[in-house]
């Protein structure tokens, strides 16, 4: 559901990089002729693959088997991250542990645990032209993931442009997030009760929900 909503956020013919987890599912909702998927391990033109066509040497950044689109190209890791850091990727859709009132994202390390892996998270967050965060609205223990200030280590000092959760959609506008959309039966009260991050409510949405 989150993935489907994220797919709607994309303009046709965008170059899109999908993170591991929910973001990977976004591919299922994209018309493959209209989107170009980039994976940082070295391929522009990622498609899905049928079981019988799996090639163990053709994978995405999550090491899952993928296929090769018509017009695809391969490149080495330094060239791949040159594309990312050089702002040639239009959109990165990433997961998050926390996003805060200032738009900062934490998605690579948990305090108290060993900090031993970061992968491409920091490069994608700093380099993609637009950042869409897809995440469950609350963590498994029920605590908000949209918080006032990240308690987990941040991934970049660059702001996320859009947050899509199972409850709502938020977009960064001027100096903060605006709640622009409720997902399914979610109410404004539900969102308020599960969010500690500051946000405004979109004028039209507010009118519609409170009339």
């Amino acid at each position, binding site marked *: 559901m989150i993935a489907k909503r994220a797919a709607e956020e994309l303009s046709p013919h965008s170059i899109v990089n999908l993170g591991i987890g929910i973001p990977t599912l976004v591919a299922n909702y994209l018309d493959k002729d209209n989107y170009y998927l980039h*994976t*940082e*391990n*070295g*391929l522009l033109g990622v498609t899905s693959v049928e079981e019988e066509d*799996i*090639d*163990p*040497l*053709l*994978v995405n950044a999550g*090491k899952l088997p993928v296929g*090769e689109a018509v017009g695809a190209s*391969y*490149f*080495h*890791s*330094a060239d*791949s*991250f*040159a594309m*990312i*850091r050089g702002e040639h990727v239009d959109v990165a859709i990433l997961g998050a542990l926390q996003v805060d009132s200032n738009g900062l994202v934490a998605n690579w*390390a948990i305090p108290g645990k*060993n*900090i*031993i*892996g*970061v*992968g*491409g*998270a*920091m*490069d994608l967050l*700093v*380099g993609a032209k637009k950042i869409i965060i897809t995440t469950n609205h609350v963590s498994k223990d029920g605590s908000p993931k949209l918080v006032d200030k990240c308690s987990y*280590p*941040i*991934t*970049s*000092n660059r702001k996320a442009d859009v947050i899509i959760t199972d409850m709502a959609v938020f977009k960064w506008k001027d100096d903060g997030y605006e709640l622009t959309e409720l997902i399914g039966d979610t109410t404004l009260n539900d969102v308020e009760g599960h969010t500690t991050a500051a946000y405004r409510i979109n004028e039209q949405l507010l009118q519609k929900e409170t009339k």
Partner: protein
Amino acid sequence: MTVAITEEAQHVIENVQTGDTIMVGGFGLIGSPLTLIDALTKRDASELTIISNNVGEAGKGLGILLQQGKLKKAVGSYFTSNREVAQWYNEGKLELELLPQGTFSEAIRAGGAGIGGFYTKTAVGTDLAKGKETKEIDGETYLLEKALKADVALVRAFKADTKGNLVYYKTARNFNPIMASAAKYVIAEVDEIVEEGELSPEEIVTPHLYVDAVIKSRLILTKDGVIERE
């Protein structure tokens, strides 16, 4: 110099000495020089610094070297794939240098290209920027990252010609071409060795001036895992 072409991984791996810094290609097992890693586990060389995206998995690939106690330090971007890495690190038996994957790749390219260091926006303001210099360039803050170089690089390619030119296969390319440029002695493990002239000059990814030795791959990754080539 001419490229050494051999069937004997154990012979070329003799170039690795105790205390050396070794680059090892591969993104997980994909594009990983499995035959050369296997030879390295049988080589009597320790106190190694490994520059590789991951340290294999627990007890697999470079993970074996860890278990053998041959590693002094690992430089990479994603050690999470081998849970034993954290263990050794916490016990003070392994040093770690964690870099964002883009910084890691760029630092290796820089090492091969005679660039001493470079400025990136990646990791600015994060825990991975601690202790690193920053600089304002055209109004934006960048982080200084130093080049990475190695004594020996173990890379996985698809085909080599008899001169030592290399081409790669799909996403098994990953870190291999840049590592082939950044070490004093470069050993490539390949599926096939063809005559010079058989690779198109326009499609060669690693020109032969980077390559010192080529061996035919014995351990290969298939759908069913790693198998020994018949």
